[in-house]
């Protein structure tokens, strides 16, 4: 299983649906949420044991991203997904030193349903 980490700064539904899609593609996805959540909300969204969900305080979020990127195993090319262009631009810098795939996820609602698309950042 290849590691995948989705940093959630914007939206949620699209990230969750994409994580489910990654499970099917034999990734082990983790969702890192910017902001602390109440226990009952965490319990609500942590139902799928195949998807790890962690909430991180806003001021620690960037540091957390940095450590997560450093943790990526060099032998297995990991996938990193972000929801903000600014974060994608920042992470592009790390690609010089670490080998990982970087994607930007955009989500919106259309006729009351969530639609999302990913874009490879090279």
């Amino acid at each position: 299983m290849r590691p995948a980490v989705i940093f959630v700064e914007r939206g949620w539904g699209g990230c969750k649906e994409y994580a489910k899609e990654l499970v099917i593609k034999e990734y082990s996805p983790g969702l890192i949420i910017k902001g602390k959540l109440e226990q009952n909300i965490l319990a609500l969204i942590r139902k799928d044991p195949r998807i790890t969900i962690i909430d991180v305080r806003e001021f620690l979020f960037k540091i957390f991203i940095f450590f997560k990127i450093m943790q990526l195993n060099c032998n297995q090319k990991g996938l990193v997904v972000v929801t903000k262009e600014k974060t994608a631009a920042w992470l592009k810098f790390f690609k010089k030193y670490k080998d990982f795939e970087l994607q930007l996820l955009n989500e919106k609602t259309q006729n009351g349903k969530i639609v999302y698309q990913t874009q490879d950042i090279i």
Partner: protein
Amino acid sequence: MKIALIYETKQVYHSGQYFLYAFQQLGHKVEHFDLNSLKDIPKTYDLYLRTDDGYYNFIWPQDIKERSTYWICDTHLKKPAKKMRKLSHSFGKCFFAHYTSGIKTLSKIKNFSEDFYWLPFACDPQIHASLQKKVNIEPIYDIAFVGNEGNIPRKFILHELRERYTKSYIGYADFRKMGTVYSYSKIGFNYSINNDLNPRIFEIMITGRMLITNNINDSKFLELFKNRENIVVYNNVEELFSLIEYYLKHEDEREAIALKGQSLVLSQHTYLHRAQEILKVCGLQ
């Protein structure tokens, strides 16, 4: 009577428009002006109403101060509240939509007790209830929510609703179609941010569908509405899902609450009522 309404037209969905229709229905001559044409507004109007549209960088002409009113809405948000508190000095009378946050933000102003009045949001039957239940619409959605996802925790609750109730409409809709979405739903969902008595409450109720909302910590909330009588209130997510399950199964109870809610907003909470209130306060009725 001649009334000038001032709000930005860039915003597609704006309550200023509802006031325009309401004053017209009351037989007044109403004209709308954009914020950037503030200098060119003729000084001949009997009343000037500036509605909150999210733009706060303007200087209000002081020669019309006594005939000017400002409807302040976003007092539940820190930055806009601060800006609107400053701007309120330029108007003869001010109205505020959220009671608790409005009092908190504005009550320190010298003339607060004389010139500030509570005026909550409302609905417009022509726009929000164009498809009334009298045409016997069969609901196709279990749950409906029209609006943006918001932040923590609203976006998580909304997606959970999407996952649990696949026959739902949760997301953006044009304000002209909003009423149709709610009319085709069994339950209209609301999650108020920072305890604001938001327009969604009224917009759902007028469609004749049951409103389920979080418990809003605004002292006027339970004064206006009665839990399990004309609305349904939940205190936590567990309760939310058990209440939704219950009311989806008990159609008669759901319909009874919805109808009571609809008749309440139609009789007391339309923009026509709010327009009348403004005129009354300004001594123009």
